[in-house]
């Protein structure tokens, strides 16, 4: 991959001389405290965790923005968990475009999908499992990314030469599996199915477009799967398998009602997966002229893996309420629950966020696990109910 960057470099410099440049530097600093209501389940764990996040960002544009360089760094410092203390390059890429093409190379983040309770189709980036519990945080992925606009829609092609393992919380961290004999899940111990290991390249393609009220995406991925396949649950022995994944994501937007669907088929010698999530979001806008938007969400999740997997959603129902106050402080509130249809497991979450002044933001987040069935992966973290308060300052 290196030669491509080197080959383009003189081109970049030449363009830079021609036109004016624009640059911007910014910084986010976050302090956060996570308090677990119940005592630790495994040795080494604590009840209260302070942590800090620093995220510097830099943007350089030249040739009227036709060329740009973006950098987003990331550092998390955790009071107790040495694995959650981590550094990452979230983004560091060069991008250029002309009428119908967008090309970029470097570390990037790409999101695919439509649904809220699970992101099945989204596969380009490895999940940053220590940063956030819900899988929304992602590690930067090195890629060459070409986006072509034609009469089929937007066709995107990806080549990712290098694989990044998922990082799990360390011995002193919570929200991790374990047992009384003090075993800890550690991605460094996992094997690769491919002999090329982490240098087995991944390839992906996606077609996306919309027809009237229908937005859709069709995707294909071939490479080392981002989700490790757990082969032995007593030791958490796992393997990163080479997969083929076909994905479909759709949304129908009809007035205040949105209908959403995502489905994947993932093929691998160790494990084939068919999974689906579908549902709706209905928004009562500007209720009583107060500016308040109330969104009601319902989704059904299905995953045909009977055995335990990191994705604890086999046959579940998600119900949620989203409140957007549309006020000056952009106050938002989200609460939801996931119920297992076949088992007893219940998950609850609440998120509240509000801007303070113009450069601060406060977020409260809480999660609860109830009646967790011993056959679910969530059983390992059944006592990790927590309340997290965080404050972010933007510079």
């Amino acid at each position, binding site marked *: 991959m290196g030669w491509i960057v080197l080959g383009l470099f003189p081109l970049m410099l030449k363009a830079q001389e021609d036109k004016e440049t624009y640059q911007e530097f*910014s910084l986010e600093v976050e302090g956060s405290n996570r308090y677990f209501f119940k005592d630790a389940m495994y040795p080494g764990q604590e009840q209260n965790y302070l942590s800090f996040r620093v995220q510097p960002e830099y*943007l350089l544009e030249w040739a009227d923005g036709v060329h740009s360089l*973006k950098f987003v760094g990331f550092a998390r410092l955790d009071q107790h968990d040495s694995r959650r203390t981590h550094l990452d390059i979230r983004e560091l890429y060069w*991008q250029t*475009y002309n*009428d*119908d093409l*967008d090309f970029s190379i470097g570390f990037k*983040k*790409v*999101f695919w*999908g439509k649904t809220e309770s699970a992101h099945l189709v989204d596969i380009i980036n490895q999940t940053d499992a220590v940063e956030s519990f819900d899988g*929304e945080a992602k590690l930067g992925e090195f890629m060459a990314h070409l*986006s072509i*606009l034609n009469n089929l829609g*937007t066709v995107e092609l990806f080549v990712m030469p290098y694989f990044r393992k998922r990082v799990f919380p360390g011995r002193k961290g919570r929200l991790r599996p374990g047992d009384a004999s003090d075993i800890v899940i550690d991605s460094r111990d996992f094997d690769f199915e491919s002999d090329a290991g982490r240098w087995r390249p991944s390839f992906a393609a996606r077609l*996306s477009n*919309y027809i009237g009220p229908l*937005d859709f995406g069709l995707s294909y991925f071939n490479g080392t799967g981002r989700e490790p396949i757990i082969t032995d649950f007593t030791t958490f022995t796992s393997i990163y398998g080479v997969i083929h994944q076909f994905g479909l994501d759709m*949304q129908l*937007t009809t*007035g*205040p*009602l*949105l209908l959403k669907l995502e489905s994947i088929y993932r093929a691998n010698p160790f494990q084939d997966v068919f999974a689906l999530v579908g549902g709706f979001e209905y*928004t009562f*806008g*500007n209720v009583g*002229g107060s*500016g308040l*938007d109330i969104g009601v969400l319902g989704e059904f999740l299905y995953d045909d893996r009977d055995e335990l997997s990191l994705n604890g959603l086999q046959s579940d129902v998600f119900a949620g309420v989203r409140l957007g106050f*549309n*006020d*000056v*402080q*952009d106050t938002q509130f989200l609460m939801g629950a996931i119920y297992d249809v076949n088992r007893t497991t219940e998950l609850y979450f609440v998120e509240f966020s509000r*801007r303070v002044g*113009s*450069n601060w*933001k406060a977020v409260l987040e809480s999660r609860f696990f109830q009646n967790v069935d011993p056959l679910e992966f969530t059983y390992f973290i059944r006592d990790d109910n927590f309340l997290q308060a965080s404050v*972010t300052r*933007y510079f």
Partner: protein
Amino acid sequence: MKTKLSIIALIVLFVAGPSYGQSPEEKGIEIAQKAIKADEGFESSEVDLRMVLRNRQGQESERFMTNMTYELTTDGDKSLIVFNSPRDVQGTATLTFTHKEGSDDQWLYLPSIKRVKRISSSNKSGPFMGSEFAYEDLSSDEVEKYTYKFLKEDNFNGENVLLVEQFPVDPKSGYQKRIAYYNPDKNYRFEKMEFFDRKGAMLKTLTYHDYETYLDKHQRAGRFYMVNHQTGKETELFFEGYKFKTGLEEDDFNQTTLQRIGR
């Protein structure tokens, strides 16, 4: 001289007078059509916006954004808006295809999670970014969106104005009606707009200030001043650095561009 003037006045009365042959509805729609026609041909534009929100106590907060518009005459305009401040929403961007009839198509880009979401545009009466502007106040003006009724000719700040009642076609609008003050001597630009809520009570007043003429005919206000009479809150919108015929093409208004400009 005096007789000449009164003859002109008489002619004006016959030609433009509401009672002569033309119903107030016909005259209303004619004025609206003239206003739209008068602004045709700007092709594309780009402008920086500064929005100042003021509560009843006078406390202020600011937002900055950039708006790009592509003009379409066969259907509603296409537009891209990027938010530059407050910092926590920096890079958030919207892509809107307005339609003369029916709901607009709208996509929202959230830069922190790199997600493009198609959003419902049916909630047009809601406040835009916590301001006193509703989404529908900022949507592109299309004749088809209202039914009209000419009220009267009047004088406003020394300018001759035509007052036209506008009744939204869309039942989801937050208004029973608006009263638009058109300036027929200045290419039918708006001087003022009064908004009445669903119960018919006076809700807001928008006045247009610091007009400038671009490309010889396009009238653009440098400042919008909106007052909400029911809450006492105000919002001012400042438009800076207008650029026209920017070279943007219709094809540039797509989701790839939305992600690129949002970052």
